[in-house]
Every structure is written in C-alpha cells, then in structure tokens.
C-alpha cells in the first residue's frame, strides 16, 4: 500500500533525507521545506521503502504537490 508524502505548504526544499530504495520508519525525517524564513520539517507517514522521490534540494514546490512515495 503506497503512501504519498504531500507538501503541506508552498516553499523551497532545503533538505532531503530520503534515498530511493531506503527502508524508512514512520516519523523518520523526510525533508524540510522553507517558507517565510521558517523551516517546516516533513516526516515519513508510515513504515516502508522509499519508492520514488519527485523533488530535490533547491526545488520550489506548491501546496499539495506529491514530494515522494513510500511503499
């Protein structure tokens, strides 16, 4: 059962902790979005493996963009 990591806000990806194929656990660091001079950490929503990463550090994203997929 795949689960998407969704951008909760628009901003810039300033840190990416995920690697495709890596095993992750719920609440692990996934990435950090910077907006309005504040950094919002995004966490892995469930245990699993990183199936796909759709963004990289430096990318600008919009709210509700899919950032990565955990399978």
């Amino acid at each position, binding site marked *: 059962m795949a689960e998407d990591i969704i951008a*909760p*806000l*628009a901003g810039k990806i300033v840190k990416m902790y995920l690697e495709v194929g890596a095993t992750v*656990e*719920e*609440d*692990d*660091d996934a990435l950090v979005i*910077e*907006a*309005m*001079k*504040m*950094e*919002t*950490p995004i*966490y*892995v929503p469930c245990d699993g493996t990183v199936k796909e990463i759709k963004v990289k550090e430096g990318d600008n994203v919009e*709210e509700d963009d899919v950032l990565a997929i955990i399978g």
Partner: protein
Amino acid sequence: MRPYFEKMPEFGKALKKGQLKRTEANLEAVRAEEANIEAEVEKVKNAGFPTEKINARGQMTVWQRLEYLVDEGTWCPLHTLYNPADNVEGTTNVIDGIGRISGRWAVIIGFDNKVMAGAWLAGQSENILRVTDLAKRLNVPLIWLVNCSGAKLPEQEKFYANRRGAGTPFFRHAELEQLGIPVLAGIYGTNPAGGGYQSISPTVLFAHKNCNIAVGGAGIVSGMAPKGHFDLEMAEAIIDKAKHFKSVPPGRVEIHHDHTGFFRYVFEEEQGVLDGLKDYMTKLPAYDPEFFQVAEPKPPKFPTEEIARLLPMEQKTVYDFNEILARLADGSEQMEFRPDYGPEVYTGLIKVNGFLVACIANRQGYLGKEYPEYADYPGFGGKLYRQGMIKMNEFITLCGRDRLPVIWFQDTTGIDVGDDAEKAELLGLGMSQIYSIQQTDVPMMLVVLRKGSAAAHYVLGGPTANRHNAFTLGTVASEIYVMHGETAAVATYSRRLVKEQAAGNPLEPVIDKMNTLAQEYHDKSRPLFCAKTGLVDEIVPMGAIRKYMEAFTASAYQNPKSICPHHQMILPRIIKG
C-alpha cells in the same frame, strides 16, 4: 462546576520511536547549553569567600540558610545571573526566588555574606525592586535574610542615590506593609548604615545573638569629626577607636532587644533564627489550597523533560506548541477557547496542581492559504494577525473577570506588517491588548520559549507589563531583540547602500558594518545576556518550567486580593457553549 474541571479534554501524543530518534540531537544541544548556564550559576554560588571559611567563623552562608529555611524541593531561584552593572563580583549580591516555608509560599531574598560581608553593590537595588514587585504582585510575604555590611564605598556613586537607588527598597517595604503584605527579616552579622535600614524596614525582626544594626557602624563612628586632612596623630586615634568598635560595635542585641525592643526575637543559634521564621510563617494568612482547587492535582501524562526534545534549538524550525503544553498541564488536559478562530495563538484553560490557570501562547507553522483573511500572503505562526489579537483581547478580559492567573508562552517574530496589516487595525489591536492586560488585576508569568521580538514581546504579557507580570523565564533557546539582526542591519543601512552606490563608492565598508550590527544583535540577545541584563528573571532548564508554574500558581492562589466563585465564572461556559 466539577463536570467542567474534574476531567477536561485530554490532548498531546506520546513520542514515537522516530521522534525520539529525530530529536536526540536537539536534546543533546539543549543539555549542553543548560550545562553552560549551570556553570555560570555555580560561579555566582562560589563568589567571594569559600563556604568553609564562613563556616569556620561559626556562620552559615546565605545558600545554607536558604536550604535550611525553604521546604525541600520548592525553591525556584530568580535573578541568579542578574548583574546589570557588570560588577566584578559577578553578582548584585542578593540571592532571591520563590519558595515554600512551613507549607506557605513566600518571596525570599538574602544578602550573600560570602561577598564583602553582604555589601550593597551596583544593580542590587534594581534586583531588590524586582523582588518587592514580585511579593506585591503575588500578595505573598517577603522574607529577608539580612547580613549587609553596608555600601561598597569606592563605588557608592553607582547605587547610593537616584530614584531607584539603594534607599528605594525601604520605601517599597513600607508600601508592602501598607498593602498588608508582611516583611519578615532574619538578621545576622554586622549591619551598619544601609544594612541598618535593610534590618529595620521589615515588619518583624528575628535576630541572631551576634548581630548588630545601626545608623552608622564601627568604621563610620571611628571616622567622625573630620579635620580636612589626615596626620599621624589622627591615624593613631582612628586605630584606637576602630579597635574599640570592632569589639563593641554599635547597635548590638543588648541595645536593640533589651533597650529599644526593635528585635522581637533573639536566637542563640543561626538555625534558631530560621526556625523562628519557619514558625512565624504558620501564623500568616493563607488559604488552604482546597479552597481554590477545581480538581485533584495530577502530573502531566507525558514527561516535562520531553520539552527539550520538542522545542527546537534551531530558531527557524517549526514545532507543535500543543505538544509542549501537554507536558506541562495536569493530566495533559485543557479547555481551548475559540480553537476555530485566530489559529496563530493558543488560548485556553489548564490546571496546575488542581488550580485553574489561563494560558496564552504563540503557535508555530503554516496557517493555511486563506489566513490571514485580510491579505494575499500566507500566515505563519509566531506572527500575530487580526483574529489572534481579537481572540487574545477577549480572553484576557474574561480572565480578569474570572480572576484567573495567566501563564504566557512567547515565541514570536512580531505583529504582521504592511498596509494590509495596517488596514486590519493591528496597531490599534496591539494597543487594545495592552489595555486589556492593564485593566485586569491578576498575576501573570511569562516563559519566553524562543523568540521575544518587536511589539509582540510587549503585548504577549512581557516584563514591560510590570504591574501584571510577576516574573519572566527564559530557556536556552530564548532570544530577545527588537527585530532580527539581519532585519535591523537592512533597516539601518539600506539608504546608505543606495547613496554609496549612487556616488560610485565601494559597498564593502557598509556591508562590513551590516555584518557587525547583525552579529551584535545576535550576541546581545543570547540567554546569558538576557539573564545578566534582566530581560528575563531566570534562565531555567526546560524540565523545570512546570516547577515554576506550580510555584507561581500556588502563590497566586495563596491569598488573592479578589475572588471569583467557580460557579460564577463565565469563561468555562463560553468555551463549552
């Protein structure tokens, strides 16, 4: 009102494995910084003569006296690192805080007899005035441990005179007594001149057999009748007088107990004085806590120490304030006021050891595309917007009406700015909030979790609300400044940059100044700086925040000046709807 308060809605979540792993680095950073603060506190504790030397004279140190006097586990120190005049002694030479004595809360202060026998130093009267303000605000007794050798004479110009100088505390003692707040003094050692007034200005005097208090001490009496110069004959006369007065100082117990009767009690042993104070505390007015408690006391469901994991040291990182509050409130229970309005601030009721307390705090993080409703930019927690300020004004007013003490938590970058914000009346709402605070008459305390900035630092119950704010705590993550250093550098030098560029001059010298200013802002906003200059009253470990909340709340409810019966409160009913 039992159905309202006995079991309020629970909130907060236990930390998961991933969170524990993720927050380990933050925990280590907090611990390292807290160890640095503790090292500074140890320097203050070790100022002056070593304890052994004082004990060898048959005296206890002020620290030993405090330990003996205060009920175990209740001491909440304040102003430990306060040293606004940067005295070489590293202290203002008074040690103070809140603690319980014989089961009753009091504000307690004593001279550090290890440092120049408890001399007056620069900054000391400011420290004492904070303490008298605290006793006044909480309406609890002020307990003095007097052991004051008088002024550090070579620096008298720094503290002797002035509107808030060394004599002002005596007027404050009189003011406390006018208000019905007793000031008890345990008196030790030699207390001449200013020390004499420190001793005589309290309400009831408990004396150690070897103490003395006097208008002028041996040194002054020996030096009376000046001739305009010194010579050998005069020097020898001074020696004779000094020897005499050293063995027979003015104002001994036989004068001020047997003759004047100023000393109500005299004790043979050092501890006897403290036992006398302990006994007397049981005679002073205090409600049994049950009179005001709305529920049985219970600890939070989650450990308070976890705040060191949940509050990021990295200033830019957002966090969930509710999770912090869940580690401070009885049973991790709360009743939130208007949760659907003004999402950037938390307003609600919690219990602290069974007492009902109001809580106001900044929330952090993204607030959604549609907020604030008056602007086309997104809202972020830490900032204050129209709804949040209206909500706080309402809540504060109701707290005043229901006689609820207020605990504020600040982590604010300021009030929203720009024409949209001006049209939304934020300037007026900020001042309304100051008015709302001022028109209440309830004690407040503040914890600056991270940022205290811009006018938001004022309107969020900061120390400038000094008729209401009993004390302000900082953490190792605190920083307080009018604006961020980089913002200040831009505000200061932006026009200069334009001019220099127009003149064809190099920009590097201006850029260097900008970087210097930004660095100065950083250096002058750190926790140690805040504690030393009095921007906060104490930097406390994150795990100790609840202990201070307990002391504040119990003190506020010990003998309040005004009461709202639980069944006549309106705020809980508004929350319930």
